[in-house]
């Protein structure tokens, strides 16, 4: 039988993340609702399967095996390979999470296929859009081979709201997995340190990126943040360099924020950063490159050197507050 499998991701002690429903929406763009089956894997998938059944259009396939929790690439690959062989789908859709990045390319390889990763749009054809050159350009891709087409969808690219409440049928799929197939030994997840800064509740944020060039220039953006009464945040490279602590990082590997105002100073707008701040009510971008992708999500943009623009803005904010 042919159809569309959408593989959703359960995280420990949490309800399913929004990106799962976005992936389901993407799957529904590829064929009729009756052809879409949602897949959930784990040692215990009962609660998650029930949660999905209320939203999935026709079938939920619950793949349960004690060796599927905690996650390992080897265990997940063994289970999904068997499921795909059994279902023989036309499309296999994933949310583009860190976990999917870990196993989905290898899964596609097992079927002689290539994962279309981080897809942002699906058009007639189907033609899949994904970003290239750090988000500065879009690429239009087609799957040309025969066999299943594997794709993962970017966070925030498709709506998470699904048409109507459903009651999908939950089916069980129990693949044999041998403990000897699992070559890696994963440890318990941990946090580096208690997060002292909760950016998610900040109303105003000044974010700084590579454009700042040097740690010595940081006071320039700190002064703007102080003048505004804003929290200071940063894109990954700034925290990688140790110029600001990791707890101030906004983006896929840091915090997700949605303040009233987000000023992005010297941040080009790679997707890893955008996913963490594009929900902000107002975004101001200051960047010397007029083609920087940050301007695509900005409400207001100033093209210029942040070394000149930011101090001028600080002075203007101070004057306005007097």
């Amino acid at each position: 039988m042919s159809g569309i499998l959408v593989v959703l991701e359960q995280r420990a002690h949490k309800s399913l993340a929004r990106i799962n429903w976005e992936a389901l929406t993407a799957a529904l763009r590829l064929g009729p609702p009756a052809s879409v089956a949602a897949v959930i894997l784990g040692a215990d998938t009962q609660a998650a399967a029930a949660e999905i059944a209320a939203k999935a259009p026709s079938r939920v396939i619950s793949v349960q095996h004690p060796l599927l929790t905690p996650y390992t690439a080897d265990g997940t690959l063994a289970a999904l390979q068997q499921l795909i062989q059994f279902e023989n789908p036309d499309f296999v859709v994933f949310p583009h999470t860190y976990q999917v990045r870990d196993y989905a390319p290898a899964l596609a390889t097992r079927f002689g296929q290539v994962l279309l990763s981080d897809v942002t749009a699906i058009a007639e054809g189907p033609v899949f859009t994904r970003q290239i050159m750090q988000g500065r350009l879009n690429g239009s891709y087609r799957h040309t081979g025969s066999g299943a087409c594997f794709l993962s969808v970017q966070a925030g690219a498709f709506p998470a709201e699904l048409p109507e409440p459903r009651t999908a049928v939950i089916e069980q799929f129990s693949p044999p997995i041998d403990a000897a197939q699992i070559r890696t030994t994963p440890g318990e997840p941990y946090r580096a340190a208690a997060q002292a800064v909760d950016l998610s509740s900040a109303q105003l944020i000044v974010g700084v990126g590579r454009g700042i060039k040097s740690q010595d220039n940081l006071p320039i953006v700190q002064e703007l943040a102080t003048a505004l009464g804003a929290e200071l945040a940063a894109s990954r490279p700034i925290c990688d360099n140790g110029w600001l602590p990791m707890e101030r990082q906004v983006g896929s590997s840091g915090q997700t924020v949605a303040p009233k105002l987000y000023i992005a100073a010297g941040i080009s707008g790679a997707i890893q950063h955008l996913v963490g701040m594009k929900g902000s009510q107002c975004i101001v971008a200051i960047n010397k490159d007029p083609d920087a992708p940050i301007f695509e999500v900005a409400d207001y943009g100033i093209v210029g050197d942040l070394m000149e623009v930011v101090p001028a803005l600080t002075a203007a904010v101070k004057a306005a507050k007097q």
Partner: protein
Amino acid sequence: MKIIVAIKQVPDRESQVRIDDSGKWIVESDLQYAMNEPDAHALEEALQLKEKSGGGGEVVVLTAGPESAGTVIREALAKGADRAIHVLCDDLATRDALSVARLLAAAVKEESPDLLLAGLQSEDLGYGQTGVIVAELLGLPHATLILNVEKTDTGVRVKRELEEGWFQSIELPTPAVLTIQSGGNKIRYATLMGIKRAKTKEVRQIASSSLVSDSAAVVVLDKISLPTKKKSTQMLAGTPKEAVAALVEKLRLEVHVL
């Protein structure tokens, strides 16, 4: 320990990108090139592993790309890699991830390393899967988004980044493939002595056609285009002083934050 590091030459992030006449690629004559940054972190991790083991073992860099990619090979050798393998191919942009991974896997197989490190993603096409596919093709265990690698008696212990500020430690037997995330280490600069030494180090060039016979691409890049704006951005022009005056006005009257 013998470590291979897969590196890629990519357009420098400061380069202007323009779409070429075919509509399928960018104008290459406009570009400056650099080593893909996550790959530079992978190289650094390999060099540190070698140093921690008292300098034993070998760090071999591997790249697939045109003759001009020799620049990043020399950079890697200058930073301390021992030798290099350069798979010559001029059609990197039109190959899908599986096709490139097949080239690299064939070159890695001949060397039988203990570890293969690669950056987690390229800064140009950003498929983010080459390392994982090579692992699958070679039948090796892998781990992705790795910030730190430690040798153990039976293999390696790695620090893997999870989402939202979480981490996890994973143990893998070697040989294994790891894709390296940025930020776990600080990339070194090449020293003058290193640059001098690099000139005497071995760079083996291999024609891609001698490694694997070409197979048809499974996914193709049909065209590239400028992204369409989702929001209507108001650009505030003028001198910095004029632009910020206009912005403060907006922040006060429309955004209501001042």
